[in-house]
């Protein structure tokens, strides 16, 4: 199966293999003798910005742990430097203000209520019923309606490293969204391929914490993807610890140990992906975490954790300046005296005097038809079928 995938991949994408590994060794030497004005990390990875898409696909109070999982990863990613404008957070967000929450406006991730991951500055981009398979695929492929604001879009380019984290209830080949629909691994793989066709990512790290999570990355075929899952096909991902005061399980095991691992990472650390693969062995997790790196071009040992979880900018010192000699016009000073007016945000007069929109006519739906059928049946039952000819 893997052989087939690899063979097909090579057949289709044979021209796409750059010689990155070849230049990596030479880069450092060249750096210090010729380009002292360029910062050292410039050539180790090909990305200039980082994005994160964090999705919690469950709702309802008993799925508290999925929301806590996603919020913990959100906090780590923010702490390591990715700003809110580059994070797309999708949560059902019905935990913090749930009637059953004994401590409202909080979501805890450690028992005895040690760490409140909800905090003051959570920016949820898609909440409640907006977390659907359609919206998730629209974010990934970029096919959003033009009225979507910037904070709800994934505006990545060909030099973006994207982290995608999914958690919830899943099965062999699918992931359940909000208890009403599901996304299959084929759809996910096709979405990533469309992202690759439009060069919407440089490298992508896919982490999934659900039951049978490894089935979700089986069908990937686009280059530069690395995937981690909390359990193999046929295994269940288990939850970590219940809290007796809140009454539900607070976190899943894999994400709990992932978080412990991430707490030791700071923006300048040099830990690499091989350490991430060792997170949560079978003794702690009960399920067997899996990973997939065959589609990834770089060696995982050379990929830093902060390449995906943090946002370390590359900087160059500016060496040139342009000599500008024109003086600023004195006339422009008069512009400042002009009073600034506030533009009307809403055309209020139009809205008040709007006529109601004509609704399209729809044929009567099943309920009305059933009701009339029942009435007719009762009528003919009582009065006999011979009256039928008077009707028709």
């Amino acid at each position, binding site marked *: 199966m893997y052989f087939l995938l690899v063979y097909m991949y090579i057949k289709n994408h044979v*021209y*796409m293999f*750059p*010689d*990155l590994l070849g*230049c990596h060794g030479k880069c450092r030497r*060249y*750096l210090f003798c010729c380009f*002292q*004005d*360029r*910062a*050292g*990390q*410039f*050539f180790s990875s*090909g990305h*200039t*910005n980082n994005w994160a898409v964090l999705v919690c696909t469950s709702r309802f109070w008993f799925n508290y742990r999925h929301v806590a999982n996603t919020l913990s990863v959100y906090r780590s990613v923010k702490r390591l*430097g990715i700003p*809110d404008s580059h994070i797309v957070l999708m949560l059902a967000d019905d935990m913090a203000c749930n009637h059953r929450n004994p401590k409202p406006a909080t979501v805890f991730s450690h028992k005895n209520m040690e760490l409140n991951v909800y905090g003051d500055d959570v920016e949820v981009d898609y909440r409640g019923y907006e977390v659907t*398979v*359609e919206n998730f695929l*629209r974010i990934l*492929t*970029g*096919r959003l309606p033009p009225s979507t604001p*910037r904070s709800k879009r994934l505006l990545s*380019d*060909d*030099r973006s490293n994207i982290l995608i984290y999914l958690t919830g209830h899943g099965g062999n080949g699918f992931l359940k969204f909000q208890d009403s629909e599901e996304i*299959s691994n*084929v*759809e996910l793989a*096709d979405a990533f391929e*469309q992202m690759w*066709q*439009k*060069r919407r990512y440089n490298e992508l790290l896919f982490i999934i914490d659900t039951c049978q999570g490894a089935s979700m990355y089986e069908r990937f075929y686009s280059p530069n993807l690395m995937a981690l899952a909390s359990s193999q096909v046929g295994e269940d991902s288990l939850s970590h610890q219940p809290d007796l005061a809140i009454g539900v399980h607070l976190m899943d095991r894999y994400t709990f140990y992932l978080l412990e691992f991430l707490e030791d990472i700071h923006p*300048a650390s040099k830990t690499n992906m091989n350490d991430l693969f060792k997170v949560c062995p079978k003794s702690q997790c009960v399920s067997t975490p899996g990973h997939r790196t065959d589609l990834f071009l770089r060696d995982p040992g050379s990929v830093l954790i902060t390449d995906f979880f943090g946002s*370390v*900018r*590359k*900087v*160059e*010192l*500016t*060496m*040139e*300046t*342009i*000599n*500008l000699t*024109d*003086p*600023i*016009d004195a006339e*422009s*000073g008069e*512009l400042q005296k002009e009073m600034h007016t506030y533009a009307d945000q809403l055309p209020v007069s139009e809205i008040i005097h709007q006529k109601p929109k004509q609704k399209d006519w729809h044929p009567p739906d099943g309920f009305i038809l059933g009701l009339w059928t029942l009435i007719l049946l009762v009528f003919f039952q009582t009065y006999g079928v011979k009256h039928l000819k008077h009707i028709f």
Partner: protein
Amino acid sequence: MATTEVERRRGQLAALSIAAVVIIVGVPLWWRTTETYRAWLPVSQIKELAKLQLHLSADVEVVFARGTVTPEQQKKVPLTQTQNMEHRVDEDTALSYRYETRYRTATIMEEDALNQPTAAEADLSLHTLSESPSGSLVVYVIPESSSLLPQNVDVYIGQRRTALLRIGSQMRVGKTLEQLLAHMEPRIKQVLHVMSFSHTDITAALSNRVRISPGNKESIADSMRAFKSSPGYEITFSLLNPDPKSHRLHWDIEGAVETYIQPLLTKLSPVANFSIDSQTLYYAMLGVNPRFDSSRSTYTLNADSLAHVINPVEARLGSNAASSNPVLNFLLYIPDAHHSPLYIHDHKKQQVPTNAFHSPRWGGIMIIRQCWVYNVNEFYEVDTVFPVDINIDMAKVMGVFLAQLRLLLGVQSSTPPPGFLVAPCGNAGLADWELDRLMWSRSVENIATATTTITSLAQLLDQIGNIVINDNIAQQVSSAVTSLQLAVSELEAGNLGFALQYSKEAILSSERAFFDPSLLHLLYFPDDQKFAIYIPLFLPMCVPILLSLLKIVSEARQKHREKKPKKD
């Protein structure tokens, strides 16, 4: 007896007619109502575009001034030569470059212009004589004796589209024109490499289409630094004041933008639209602690710590929610009273003269230098009344920002070959030939991106049979294909302005078609699910029809068998 016969016949007729209605009316109706609407796409033209053949041509005019050619050589001039170079980038992409070189002698007015005291003035007066169209070049060959260029400089590249080339005198006497041209050729090739399109630039512009192994490290950094081609950009200037209690800042941003930045953006208007805004942020810290350098009694920021400056600030910058254009941020930081003055040191512990740094595809940050600030003579004496009024010298600040803006937009300023002198780019911030180079690479990049988009969209729609293709998508695709064909032909003809315009239209149409919200494929039906849906609907209906048809056939066969022995 007869009635049962009639009844049976009626039954057979009923079964046959029901079967006929089902097959003739029902099946086509079901097929038509369940097929997805797919408007026609020009698939054959798209397949043609998948194999991209780009021809780039430039017009070069070489003008010989008096004293550079002997009278025998002069007889053979005017002369036209054409040079073609083919490159095959990969199996689907091929490039060919054509240089049409015209040689002629200078006119009297040009000779007068070349007699100016300095090269810059000569350049200016040559420009007033004639304006070269976009994409073309003029090289003036001046004799050894000319005093326009300093001693060690052979080539001067002006602000417009002209270059001055000085040839050595030993090649002049007793040689034919061909030998003279052959001697000049390497120099002219170098001039073309600097001022017109070069193979490295064009192949870098094709990076969306072709994954090329990066050549040298400078090209990797260059390709990562500049923004990708986009129809619009947003530029934001932010003034960061971490200490409003001590400093009251005044910056004339409107005037500065109008005077210094707007000319560049107006010149770049064929390439993209720009929108500018500015803001002041109070209590915005840098996020890294500067160290005190006692030898110079200044505070310093090390080059290694600069990478951690951007993230804490970025959260507060904000952006225009209405557009999805890439944003360029330019930040000016005034250090607070306790950490003043603040300088950036590079890896060799030397002060950086501009005191600024930039991040690829993001923007630039500059820390104000003390000498660029008015009204602060002796800083922070004991009896200074806080807050101190500070007026910022916008010319110096905008000089640095303009340099960063040029780098981020992709105006390459690689080091020219030895013996070259490049004129400073003037108040517009951009020389004409730099604009031409940008337009060449942008056109090629747009064409490459648009062809990839269109071909992958066609492939996607072909693969997934149940995506609805609306009329507006088909129209966008057709207009993208038309624009692409026009852009490629205009590039071949050498009309750079039109080629860029058509390539921009092609990009807009293809992106609009590819990212149309209606193209979402949520209809993944495995075959067993399709059977599970149709069988409960059709099986109960088809089974009685089939059985009755079978009964009719078996009865007819039986009757036929009965008739046969009777015939005998």
